């Protein structure tokens, strides 16, 4: 095991504790050098974030609360339980034209400026009766690609494609793309492809210029996918039964698998060096190293890090070229930063 982590002297403190959701940590990695990093996790109906200086000493906290929208798309009182929306997934999206904070909630998708100050757009999800078993209406899976496209998945297995203008609030839904039979759990993209996964374990590979399906990866076993990530042409998918599987995005074949955790995996993340981090309810963060490419993959185990009595719900690499990570815990308002 070649990576040893030590916790940073000061964890990132946010005002509210993190909820128990998958992929519940998002990091705004600034595109310009002088901008500061932001960390955020979702908490029930709100999103708590902290802007942190490079050495971690100065922290500014901020919160965003989901809007409750009643019937007829008018704002509803915040304590009316019929209209309370819970955040299912929150993510910072970096597009060439603009940066956004997207909150995928039950009943709606809400889009804000990255610092949470300005509300840009709210899209109410279609209330038609959902498919076989999902009885709640939600959106999940957020990714941006191309110049100005934002994709969010929903409970029916459709991908909603939004067009984002460089300025202003003129965000509109360009297309609703059906594809999955089950609710979407995760979306990732790179320069050419869009990868979507669902609760059944199916992965669809799309060409993100034409939005046509290129390939299908059928479920490997009875377990669904909780989180996905992509490195070169290799798709990493984490499953609710503790497995991580790697697939070749070109020919949809399996390249590798790891029996990684003893509990459901809540999040995985890849950086550009081929490091993969996975966190789970079993209180472990595990780091794996990928080398080669999807056709000829080598996987090695780099690190186990155990955080006592903490069900870990989110992990992100702080930099795409280094191995420092940040981890969030259910019921805790500390985001733990681990430095290699």
């Amino acid at each position, binding site marked *: 095991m070649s990576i040893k982590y030590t916790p940073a002297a000061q964890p990132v403190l946010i005002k509210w*504790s993190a*909820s128990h959701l998958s992929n519940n940590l998002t990091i705004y990695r600034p595109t310009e050098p002088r901008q500061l990093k932001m960390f955020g996790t979702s908490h*029930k109906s709100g999103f708590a974030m902290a802007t942190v200086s490079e050495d971690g000493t100065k922290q500014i906290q901020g919160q965003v609360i989901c809007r409750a929208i009643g019937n007829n798309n008018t704002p509803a009182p915040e304590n009316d339980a019929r209209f309370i929306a819970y955040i299912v997934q929150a993510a910072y999206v970096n597009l060439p034209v603009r940066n956004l904070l997207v909150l995928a909630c039950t009943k709606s998708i809400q889009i804000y400026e990255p610092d949470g100050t300005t509300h840009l757009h709210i899209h109410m999800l279609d209330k038609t009766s959902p498919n076989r078993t999902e009885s709640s209406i939600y959106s999940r899976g957020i990714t941006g690609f191309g110049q100005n496209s934002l994709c969010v998945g929903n409970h029916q297995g459709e991908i909603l494609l939004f067009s984002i203008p460089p300025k202003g609030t003129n965000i509109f839904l360009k297309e609703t793309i059906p594809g999955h039979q089950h609710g979407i759990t995760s979306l990732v993209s790179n320069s050419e492809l869009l990868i979507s996964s669902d609760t059944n374990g199916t992965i669809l590979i799309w060409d993100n210029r034409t939005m046509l399906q290129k390939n299908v990866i059928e479920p490997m076993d009875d377990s*669904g996918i909780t989180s996905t990530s992509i490195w070169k042409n290799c798709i990493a998918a984490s499953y609710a039964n503790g497995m991580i599987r790697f697939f070749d995005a070109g020919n949809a074949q399996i390249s590798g698998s790891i029996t990684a955790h*003893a509990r*459901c995996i809540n999040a995985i993340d890849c950086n550009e060096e081929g490091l993969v981090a996975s966190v789970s309810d079993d209180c*472990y963060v595990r780091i794996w190293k990928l080398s080669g490419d999807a056709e000829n993959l080598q996987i090695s185990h780099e690190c186990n890090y155990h955080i006592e*009595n903490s069900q870990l719900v989110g992990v992100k690499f702080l930099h795409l070229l280094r191995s420092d990570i940040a981890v969030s815990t259910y019921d805790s308002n500390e985001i733990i930063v681990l430095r290699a």
Partner: protein
Amino acid sequence: MTMSVKFQIMLCPCAADIIKVTYNHVNSMRKLVRSSTVLDLLDKAFIAFNKQYERLNDVEWLLIRDTILFFFQDVHIRVSIFLRENLQTQQGVFIVKTNGIVPNGFQTPGEIRTYKRGRLNNTHTFNAGEHHEPPDDKRTFHLGLNIYSKSKSSNESLLSDSAVRRPSVMVNAASDIEMINPDPKMIAQLNLLSDLIGNSSGGDSSRSGLLKLSLFDDDEDEDTGPPIQKRPQASSTSNQRPKNEDITIDVSKRNQNPRLSHVLQDFDFDERSTRRGKKDDDDDDDLCAMMDRLPGSTGNKRR
């Protein structure tokens, strides 16, 4: 109560185990319900629950569990039974142990497999940091069962408190009936024990048997050997293992009398003091006065 539901949901090994927790809840409720209409309704509700939830896959269950956990977020009440049984820290955080048997559908962590052209090419292992075992379908699922019925707390072992504890123990007894197979030997041993101490009252023999059962479990914890080793001090036929009730009752009767006679003597003594016409002083004064009058012997008799 909030914390115990939070405990059950958080500590479920996989999210679909919420079904098993519900099964345990419903089974325990069935034992407590007496009216047949209510039982009927309970069964109907259970069937409807099953119909709706058995077809969900595991990630759909995760969303259900996460939504339930919204409700319990930031609740860190410390519960005495969890603190005692080392299930909760002093800050109110539950202790999560994840070694041991992995849930159903999981594989034990530790293997890395690589594939070439879709076929298994190479397998090597890594150190998972904990000891894990493959899933085991046959083990009983404990979350959702009555946490007090299994409790080995010192409070319930104090025999002097058993009279006070009786109501709560009888509630446990209803759900304990099927959990503990009453071994006739054990019942006989426990009957003997309770008779020796003079706590047996009239009433249902099965109930008093169950009452002793919980005491017996606690005694077993305290002694290293089987309880029979206690017997030599109490009875002269201690070498006999009580195989059937008759023998044990005979043995106990011989020893019961000295205890009862001690108790009777205490009562006599109290009457004597009032006959002498002493004023009704404070209890303390009476006790001191009594102890002054009887040098040593009664003091030993009082427990």
